């Protein structure tokens, strides 16, 4: 690899990474606004409507407020880990976006630029799973380092829950991987080309349901938001956090929700594929217009799932902890193993 190639690669990756990180953070704030508006709509209220038009600037006001707050570290806390935990959480939430493809590619000055930092990574799915498991450390350490029994319980609960549901999530993924024959995210999307009935959700419906339920648990969202169950645990693992450190956990939670939505859209709803064959648009591969169409297709799918996450949060009551564990281990895990088994048998029998 010569120097010019390396320079081009570094410049390209750097620009992409800069843009994507900024979009994630703005998206996370936009999700907070969306969550409050949808929640208000479901509960027949108005929601935020004071700051900016339709209250659109409310999340920025919240961020400013969080910055102004005093940053308290409890005297008996383990200080370094208390500082490290929110960083770790946010870092892992953002790192996942490195492999997500946002559209296919555009040709710029003779170079083929893929839209996404490393969408053709051979181990894309494993990378995402690895980063989400590392995200557990942030929460566990936050719970432990606060030196508070409620925090500790919240942190342990959350990590136990995330580990349990990761299993069924991984097993559900095996069905999708068997159907698409690759772990690379662009490869999975390429297999779902054409009309929308080629999307994986129609040949892997059980995997889709298991995966969606598991991602609710993975992101610690209702109905599985036991780590921050207010009535029993004060505030869960982030009880002792204030100021922008609390804000970082908050951002990480919403970034994770967006990740889960992207992931569902890519694996089961064709990612950036349009719902009809893209030849019908009459645009050639690598043109900016086609990339824009693909990006909007992806973005709309992602927004729909974010809306779904919020909708579930404000309509379904919280599970009890033993119910959560028995759902994960006794229903979802066997079901996902059976799904993988039947998919494998079907592939051999029908020579797919």
């Amino acid at each position, binding site marked *: 690899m010569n120097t010019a190639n*390396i320079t081009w690669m570094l410049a390209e990756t750097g620009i992409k990474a800069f843009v994507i990180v900024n979009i994630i953070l703005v998206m996370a704030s936009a999700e907070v606004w969306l969550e409050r508006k949808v929640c208000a709509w479901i509960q027949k209220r108005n929601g935020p409507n004071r700051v900016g038009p339709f209250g659109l600037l409310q999340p920025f006001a919240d961020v400013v407020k969080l910055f102004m707050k005093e940053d308290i570290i409890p005297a008996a806390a383990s200080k370094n880990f208390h500082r490290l935990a929110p960083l770790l959480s946010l870092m892992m939430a953002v790192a996942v976006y490195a492999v997500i493809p946002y559209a296919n590619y555009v040709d710029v000055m003779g170079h083929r630029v893929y839209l996404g930092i490393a969408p053709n990574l051979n181990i894309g799915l494993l990378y995402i799973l*690895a980063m989400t498991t590392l995200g557990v450390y942030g929460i566990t350490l936050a719970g432990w380092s606060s030196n508070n029994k409620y925090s500790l319980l919240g942190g342990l609960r959350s990590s136990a829950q995330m580990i349990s549901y990761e299993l069924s999530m991984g097993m559900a993924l095996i069905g999708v991987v068997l159907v698409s024959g690759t772990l690379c995210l662009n490869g999975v999307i390429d297999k779902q080309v054409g009309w929308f009935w080629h999307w994986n959700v129609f040949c892997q419906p059980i995997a889709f349901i298991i995966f969606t339920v598991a991602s609710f648990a993975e992101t610690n969202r209702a109905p599985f938001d036991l780590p921050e169950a207010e009535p029993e645990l004060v505030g869960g693992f982030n009880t002792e956090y204030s100021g922008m450190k609390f804000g970082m956990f908050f951002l990480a939670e919403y970034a994770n929700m967006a990740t889960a939505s992207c992931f569902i859209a890519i694996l089961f709803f064709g990612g950036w594929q349009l719902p009809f064959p893209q030849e019908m648009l009459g645009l050639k591969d690598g043109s900016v217009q086609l990339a824009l169409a693909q990006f909007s297709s992806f973005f709309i799918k992602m927004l729909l799932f974010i809306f779904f996450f919020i909708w579930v949060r404000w309509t379904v009551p919280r599970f009890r902890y033993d119910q959560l564990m028995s759902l994960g281990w006794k229903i979802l895990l066997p079901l996902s193993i059976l799904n993988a088994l039947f998919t494998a048998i079907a592939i051999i029998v029908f020579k797919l």
Partner: protein
Amino acid sequence: MDLQFILFFVFGTLAIASASATVLSKNPVVSAMALVFHFCTLACVYFTLNAQFVGALQVLVYAGAIMILVIFVIMLLNLGNEKAFAEKFNYRKGIAIMLGASFIIMLATSFLSKNYITNQMPASSLKNGTVEKIGLDLFTSYIYPFEAIALLLCVAVVGAIILAKKKISH
């Protein structure tokens, strides 16, 4: 300097530093977190060897599954700092450190005093690290060891449950 060289030296140094932190720190949680970091740096070293699948598994299995379990146990037992580690320098520790140092010196001299070095990697190793190649070999040539490993994991799960469950007194 090549990109691969830079990556190897950066991650190799970090790996050695975090391994030393694991052994030297008194607080078990610091040790465990240093080990997690060590596993991640080692995964990066695997990437410089074109072993992508093994690198991803390293993070997924070691950092994601095994170390979470270890941290769980440490938090469950609520261990404090180990007191006697910093005590007087006894002869056993001295012998251990001397043996370790001489082992490293022996390795270094035997590896680096040769008049040739192996710095040519066959081109096939680029393909060997991918999921497809390893999966193919695993389920054809190595299918019996694979089944044996499945059995071992099953036995380990049963054993762990029997060992760790509370005795119910009647």
